[in-house]
């Protein structure tokens, strides 16, 4: 068991896969959060803050503006891989603070939680050793190592546990009724009565009760089984695309956008296989 865990986390991997994932992840976060108005929370009333085990103090507006800008610069540096270690550490520290502020008003934002964990993992990783300007400057070609495997595994585990939690919550709070009754159809309909209503596409699905039951069953199944992707390549081929379709379905028919879950799914790309099949002479790191 212990040996299997060791292999799972630390089997040697080429550094390029982790490096490419780093570039995609930080570039994606930069694109997603470049225009987010974190600073506007500075003057929002404390009555809107929700119950958390710790609510970070909200800094003055000028500080939040500065924190956001520094964070974006750190994300950009981490994306291209200049001063990678420092850039990833700053990205983690400031990202955690900004997301925590954002998530302490009204209700917790579940979209950002796995990102915080991923930023923490990458801050402790050697993800800048390849596919980075740092690597170009050093002219180093690191050997395959467990260093380039475990960060991807850690983020995969975080994603799998998030999906598992969502599936368990549905069974715990709703039981099989969540799937077998009119529940999902009524939830689809209910979205149209929010102050800011859903797009209207939710009503198209709500017209087909059986489809709603099928979607509910598929959602719970995907969430509960997603963890199999950790141990089975075949399951991964089905469950990861299914989860992406599910998240896109949430956005299209329900409203909430779990875009960061989609972005984080880059950790599932089979870099070892993809890089092995590249044409000769295209280099392995950078």
């Amino acid at each position, binding site marked *: 068991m212990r040996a299997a865990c060791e292999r799972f*986390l630390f089997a040697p991997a080429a550094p390029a896969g982790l490096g490419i994932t780093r570039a995609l992840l930080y570039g994606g976060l930069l694109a997603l959060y470049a225009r987010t*108005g974190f600073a*506007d*929370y500075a003057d*929002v*009333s404390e009555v*809107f803050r*929700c*119950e*958390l*085990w*710790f609510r970070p103090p909200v800094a003055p507006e000028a500080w939040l503006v500065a924190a956001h800008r520094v964070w974006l610069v750190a994300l950009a540096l981490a994306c291209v891989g200049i001063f990678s270690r420092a850039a990833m550490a700053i990205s983690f520290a400031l990202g*955690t603070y900004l*997301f925590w502020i*954002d*998530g302490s*008003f*009204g*209700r*917790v934002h*579940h979209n950002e*939680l796995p990102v*915080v*964990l991923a930023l923490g993992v990458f801050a*402790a990783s050697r993800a800048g050793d390849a596919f980075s300007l740092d690597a170009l400057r050093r002219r180093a070609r690191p050997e395959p190592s*467990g*260093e380039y495997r*475990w960060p991807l*595994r*850690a983020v995969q*585990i*975080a994603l799998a*546990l*998030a999906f*598992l*939690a*969502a599936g*368990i*919550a549905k069974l*715990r*709070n*709703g*039981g099989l009724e*969540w799937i077998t*009754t*009119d*529940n999902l159809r*009524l*939830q689809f*309909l*209910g979205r149209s*009565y*929010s*102050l*800011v*209503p859903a797009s209207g596409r939710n*009503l198209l699905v*709500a017209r087909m009760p059986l489809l709603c039951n099928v979607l509910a069953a598929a959602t719970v199944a995907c969430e509960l089984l997603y963890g199999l992707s950790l141990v089975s390549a075949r399951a991964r081929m089905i469950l990861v695309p299914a989860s992406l379709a599910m998240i896109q379905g949430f956005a299209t028919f*329900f409203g*909430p956008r779990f875009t960061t879950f989609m972005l984080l799914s880059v950790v599932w790309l089979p870099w070892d296989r993809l890089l092995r099949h590249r044409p000769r002479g295209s280099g392995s790191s950078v």
Partner: protein
Amino acid sequence: MTRSRRLLANLLVLGIVAGSAAAIATGRELWPFSPYPMFSGVHRETTVARHWIYGVLPDGREVPLSDRRFFHPLRPAQLEAAFARLGPAERREGLDDILSRYEARRAAGRHGGPRVTGLRLYRMTFELEADAGNRDRPLARELLAEAPGETR
């Protein structure tokens, strides 16, 4: 890979597993770990209750403020969750807060909403209909708070 680096990696992975397991087991938000309870309740009723914010125009008419830009940086889901748990005095304080930011942002040209002299928070109850054609005809409309003005 050195022993200390391996230990660090193991501790991080263990932390992720333990934090997630604790959130799942307790059903509590343990930021950044969560039991991810969104949409997990079962909807059995054919009615639905929602909190709507109306703007009071200078001529006294009311209009629902149904554009997410009006409430920035708070999102509609954040407002709904907050107003659902707040007491009367806090609702009034919250509305005051939204009103001042709404007008400041409108004056700065950051949204195109109408000028309002006040806000009213209602709990709206609707019969669910297949085409949602009754959005403007709630079964019940209960005034919860008003800003500026009396709290009910």
